[in-house]
Structure formats: structure tokens, C-alpha cells
């Protein structure tokens, strides 16, 4: 479907989401938190049945998380269109309702973002670690507060200490 045509359709069906075109075939909707689930259900009924990615981004400068649901379709008329449902929430309370009843694919995607950024998806029963080790006790790694450099330095120091000790033992 052409971008302008789809934009018009969404403006009539979801008027309060301020839809806009990012670039060709990429439309962005910005619903309110309370309307997130309804928006997703409406999109599913319009034919957007293939949830492709959920991306959460940390913005410590503004104290916000950005949630981005990227949705495609396998219907013939909508195959080229991608919808991004975007909302920003304060960093202190990053809780959104789950959309697993709209797209079951969300269970795993939400789980990934939960473990990597510590955001909560209310109603998702699978919120436990997927990729991280069970004994991970630091802050979620994709937060901007988690510095990769610091970890590398600490590891290197530890490594240097081991080498020093080995050399020390060898001398005696």
C-alpha cells in the first residue's frame, strides 16, 4: 500500500496517535501509554500480523526509555509497509502492558528487552533471563550506565595480577 494511502487510513482509524512518515514504507505512530494495547489490536485487525522487533532504548540525558514496536505484515497488500509504534516513558517507571495476546511473538521479544534493559512488561509470564547467565547480578547490560570499558579494564587488571603472581612464583 502507498504510504499516503496508509497514512490516511491510520488517521481515520487511530486519530490520536499522530502518525507520520519517517521515510519510504516506514510509518511512525505515537500512542499514549493507556492506548498502546488498543492501538496494537487495531493494527492487527488492519492486517499487521507479523511483529518483527521490539527495541527499547535508554536515554539517560532526558531520563526516558523509548519503546519501539516494529510491525510488518504477511498480507499481500501490506507486505512492504512497516509500522513503528513508539512511546517514551520515564526511566523511573518503565512498565508497559504486554502485547502477547495481540502477537504471541512478543513473549520472547519482551523477554529479551526485559533482561537487557530492566524494563517491565506487565502480564508477560516469561520475564526471566534468556541470554544472560543466571548469576548475573549487575545492572542490565544495555543501559547506558553499564560501561563496557570499565569491565574490560577490570578484566585486564585481574589478568595482569595473575601474570604478576605467576612470574613472582617462577622467580622463587
Amino acid at each position, binding site marked *: 500500500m502507498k504510504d499516503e494511502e496508509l497514512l490516511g487510513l491510520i488517521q481515520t482509524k487511530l486519530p490520536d496517535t499522530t502518525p507520520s512518515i519517517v521515510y519510504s514504507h516506514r510509518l511512525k505512530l505515537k500512542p499514549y501509554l493507556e492506548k498502546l494495547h488498543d492501538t496494537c489490536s487495531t493494527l492487527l485487525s488492519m492486517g499487521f*500480523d507479523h511483529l518483527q522487533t521490539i527495541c527499547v532504548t535508554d536515554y539517560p540525558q532526558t531520563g526516558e526509555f523509548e519503546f519501539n514496536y516494529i510491525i510488518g505484515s*504477511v498480507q499481500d497488500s501490506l*507486505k512492504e509497509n512497516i509500522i513503528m509504534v513508539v512511546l517514551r516513558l520515564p526511566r523511573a517507571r518503565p512498565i508497559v502492558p504486554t502485547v502477547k495476546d495481540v502477537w504471541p511473538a512478543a513473549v520472547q521479544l519482551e523477554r529479551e528487552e526485559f533482561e537487557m534493559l530492566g524494563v517491565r512488561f506487565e502480564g508477560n509470564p516469561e520475564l526471566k533471563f534468556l*541470554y544472560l547467565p543466571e548469576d548475573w547480578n549487575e545492572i542490565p547490560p544495555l543501559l547506558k550506565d553499564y560501561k*563496557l570499558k570499565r569491565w574490560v579494564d577490570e578484566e585486564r587488571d585481574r589478568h595482569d595480577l595473575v601474570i604478576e603472581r605467576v612470574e613472582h612464583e617462577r622467580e622463587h
Partner: protein
Amino acid sequence: MSANTESNPEMLAGVFQQEEAPEGRLKVSFGPQHPGSGHMRIILTVNGDIVEDAVPDVGYVHRGVEKMCEYKNYIQNIPHIERPAIHDSSGTIFPYILAVERLLDMTEKVPERAQYIRVIMAELNRMINHFYFFGILGIFMGHTTPITWGMGDRDYLIDVAASATGARVTFSYFVPGGVRTDLPYGFEDKLLKTCDYLESRIPAYKAYLEENPFARMRLTGVGVIKRSDAVALGLAGPTLRGSGVKSDVRKDEPYSLYDTLEFNIPTREEGDAMARMMVHFEEVKESLSIVRQAAKKLRPGPVKVPLRGQIRGKVGEAYARTEGARGMNSYYIISDGQIHPYRVRVNTGDSRNLAAMRPVLIGGKVADVPVAHWSLDYWPVASDR
């Protein structure tokens, strides 16, 4: 904030907890050392020979690619992004390059020759993956023929790709603006000869799939995914097409001049392991045709737009997707105008297909677990990222 760092017993329990199996059942850890599981394990609850529950336990090869991307510049990201995908390195890096080109405003500037070379490399990688898939799935059915055939024929393709890229597995050949180097002298002859050879091998593979009763028995009716489930679970690639969904990014949203080439999208309605195997097999034939067409369209010319100095993405975002060998690969990149991305969200077809693992295994037999598992086009290293 950081809600998952508190010691939450519900979460810490995880899948590692060795709780007692229910009465009359047995818990089996399928992997991670078992060669039939890959770099992952599946915790099976079995009742006799029937699988009653199957929990995939992944993450053994997670390397934090998304975090590493935030620390390296746009060019340095290329090699480490494609490291996890030994079967499909071109397909894995392709959407990243498209997204970066969008951020650099050079989508329209990529030379035509570079675009066709990209198509050739992506299709070579698709065939490399499909022969690999064929061999691995065969060996886990207990057949030695497919692994020897698949690995042998895959090597001819690797030789062709290596002559252009200098590497056998991870090519790092695509760069923003084109490809790294031009094709070497005599590449097209070598490519077309290899295509002719593989074409002559197709009847043998077809006979193995369609006439060997043991292959038919092991594959037919195993790991069935219904069409509606495949879409709802967000599956991708041959797994989705094996369930009758005609979805392929090369046709849906053509990139890199795929719209100037003629090819079909093979689909199957059955949704079982046999259907997925046949989709792979048909795709090899289509890829051979695409490679030949693209080789014919190669004209002399530049292969990249020269980029000078440190490149910086414009402030904004880009979402690019391509059809990798194992499903749709997509990259969502946010740029804040620095030399490295602000956030990169990687989604590979493999990680999408992981969602189908549990429903596919439940209700099946223990002996069918490796067959159903490997027929899903799930590669743990590319999935864990």
C-alpha cells in the same frame, strides 16, 4: 529501575533449577555438550518416548553484539557483527549496511555493479547455508550421505566466494557504499562453471529427498507448524514459507536491484520438516537462476562510493531488513550524529525461529527431537548474538 537485579526468586529460578520431575516422568537435559543440540540445551520432560515439555535454554554463546556496536564505529562494526554467522555472513551484514547507508544518505548512490555483486554474494551465501543445513539435518537423522554431499558441494561455493573476498567463512565484503574490492579476473567463468556443476547435482539430491524411504519417514509429519501459528509466532524465512506463507523480503520490499531479476518464492503447505527441507531445496534452484541472471547483468564500473575520513550517521533512525538464508534479518539503528551508533537492535531469522521450538517439540517422540530442532533453521550462535 534495574528491576531485574534484585534477587527475585521467581526469576533466579530460571531454567537451571533441577526440580523434581512429575510422577512417572523423566527430565532430560538435551545438550549443551550433546552434538545434536548445538550450542544450547533443551530441557525435555519425557513420558516414556513422548516429549511432554521442552524448554529451550539458550545463551551459551551470547556475546553482546548490540552493546559492542555502541562502542565501535560504523566500519569497525562490520567484522564482529557477522562473526556469529558462519553459514550466512553476507546475509547477516546486508541489512546493517543498508541501514547505515540510509543514515549516510547514500542509498541511491550505490553503483549498479556493486548492487549486483552484493546479490551474487548473498545468493552464494544462501546456497552455502542451504547445503550446510541439508548436511546437518541429514547427520542428525543418522544419514551420512547428506553431510558428505552437502559439505562437499558447499566447498565449491566457498572457493568461489573466497576468490572474490579472500576469506572462506566470514567475508566482511560489504561496506557502506558498495563492496570492498572488485571481482578478480576470471570470477564469472568460475562462478558459472560452479553453477553448472551444482545444477547437475540437483537430481541426486531430489532422488534422496523424494525416493529414499528412510528420509521420507524421518521427515514427513515431524514438527508440524500451522500457517496461523507460524505468522503469530513471528517466524521467518524457509520455516515460514514451509508453512504456506508466501513472504520473502526480496519480493516484498525489493532491495539491491532484486526487482530486476526474475525468481519464484517456493512455498509448501504441509508445515512439517519435509516441507521445510523441500523449500530449502527449491530455493537452491532459484538462487542458481538469480546468480546467473546477476552475472549476466554485471557491467564494468565502480564498485563503491569512496568514503573519506571518519563517517558519521545523521541524527535519526533507520530500519532495514533483508532476506537472509535462515530468515528475515533486520537491523534498527539509532544515530545521534556520533562516529558510532547510539543503539543497534539486531534481529536475525534464527532468533525468530526459536519461538517455534517449544510448540514443535511438545507431543513428539524423543527420536524426532533432533530432526524437528534442526529443521527449524535455528542456529544458536546467530540467534544469541
